[in-house]
């Protein structure tokens, strides 16, 4: 035993702290969430250690199925819009003159170094019924009555696309950048049209980027409860807000834990799909 420790002293000193830290503050808490899903909530907002599957059964209630449906739909719309808007943008960046490239990518990242809530708050200020945009539109005579833009589903979608666009663009940029340009030349030399070059060469070759971008957009979008809080009305409930409510206001932690298992399962399925086309290292 003693020799074992001596031999591995270096490992314990260097890797040890990380293993301890992640073990205590990540793995144990996650295991505890899984345990909570089978506990019974008591009347005082706490939990009793009585085994039950009630929390999982409750997931299938119609009201919650609707929440999942709405959330997945919102995330899907967000992802598709980010891809459609982001792809041409990533393409432009990747093909920009070399001395500009670094600057342009920096310009893309700059807003995202600042807090996302502050930026969402900026949108909130812009879109308010008595806010800047309405004031401007009325001022130039485009509208008579202020439009109700804030606290709508559209505003939530806008906030989501805004918050996640760079997460889509960066992997796309990386994969377009890596493209072997001679393949494109070969394609057009052999008589392929531009559309053909795109659909048959560029698009398939940048598939890993498209996948990575989609996943990095889709997964966080499910959890951004503060965007729907700030931009959306109380009309539509999303899974992030539902989980938040279970932990803070409804105080039904076991059910909240079961809901977060849904998030984990969705994530795992997507990751599994992803590892078929790319590697985990590309995600970081």
């Amino acid at each position: 035993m003693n020799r074992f420790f001596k031999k591995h002293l270096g490992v314990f000193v260097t890797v040890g702290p990380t293993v301890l830290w992640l073990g205590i503050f990540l793995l144990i808490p996650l295991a505890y969430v899984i345990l909570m899903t089978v506990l019974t909530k008591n009347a005082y907002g706490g939990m009793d250690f009585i085994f039950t599957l009630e929390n999982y059964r409750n997931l299938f209630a119609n009201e919650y199925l609707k929440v999942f449906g709405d959330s997945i739909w919102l995330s899907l719309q967000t992802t598709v819009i980010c891809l459609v808007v982001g792809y041409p943008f990533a393409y432009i960046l990747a093909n920009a003159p070399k001395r500009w490239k670094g600057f342009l990518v920096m310009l893309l990242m700059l807003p995202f170094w600042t807090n996302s809530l502050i930026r969402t708050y900026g949108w909130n200020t812009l879109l308010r019924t008595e806010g800047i945009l309405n004031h401007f539109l009325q001022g130039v005579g485009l509208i008579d009555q202020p439009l109700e833009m804030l606290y709508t589903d559209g505003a939530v979608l806008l906030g989501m696309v805004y918050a996640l666009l760079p997460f889509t663009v960066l992997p796309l940029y990386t994969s377009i950048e890596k493209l072997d340009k001679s393949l494109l030349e070969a394609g057009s030399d052999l008589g392929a049209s531009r559309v053909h070059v795109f659909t048959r060469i560029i698009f398939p070759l940048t598939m890993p980027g498209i996948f990575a971008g989609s996943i990095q957009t889709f997964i966080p979008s499910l959890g951004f409860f503060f965007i729907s809080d700030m931009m959306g009305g109380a009309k539509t409930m999303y899974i992030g807000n539902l989980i938040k409510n279970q932990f803070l206001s409804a105080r039904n932690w076991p059910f909240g834990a079961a809901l977060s298992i849904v998030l984990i399962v969705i994530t795992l399925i997507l990751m599994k799909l992803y590892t078929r086309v790319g590697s985990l290292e590309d995600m970081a």
Partner: protein
Amino acid sequence: MKKKRKPREFRPGSVAYACLIYLFLYLPIFVVIAFSFNSSKMNIVFEEFTVEWYFKMFDNRQLMDSFVNTVIVAGVSTILSVIIGTLCALGLYRFEFKLKNAISSSLYIPIVIPELVFAIALLSFFSALHVSMSMVTLIIAHVTFSMPFVVITVRARLAGFDRSIEEAARDLGANGFRTFWRVTLPMIAPGVISGGMLALTMSLDDVVVSFFTAGPESTTLPLKILGMVRKGVSPDVNALSTLMIVGTIAILLTSNFIQERLERKL
């Protein structure tokens, strides 16, 4: 998608499109900055230029406290992440041991897992241990999600590291510590700095995890704004947010500059 005839030239269509996207990305930031200089109390029309909010914000104790909390949490969690993360990267690089692969891949758990799940997991864990939420829990949370990024960044740097330089130092009589301090550390410094900057931005940017792991006495500026936004936000928030935006960008640009200088020295 078009294939470019002259791929190294800007084309008007591309430029217009890129400008539109950049406008979209910067619009809300400009709004916050512009209104921090507005004399009107309402965030609707720009009345007159003023800097009064930059002085008045100091009177708003709660707001200032939340700002100070944000800075402390970001600073402490970055330092901790960098120390623990760099050590881990060095260990993973230098030693061969059982479970090495398991440890490397578990570093990806906090990256892959939805932040909300991680947030409620920590909340439940702390309350099961009857630990009340405070600055300490907030810092622990931030270190947990940012440290893996430091490990990965430093490891990437170490991957291109020529080991014979270290051996040369040892052969020339430098002891282990000296070799680390004079040879290894300067070599991996750019990786350590960019890992640290990543940790810093992640901490400053975080909302979801902080929301669950901050105590009533340790709210950060973003959480404070989230609490105010429905009731209407006072203009001094714009001023403080502007400071935070400008401060973050300044720190990151400086570190980027330092990093490039370091790279050039090698």
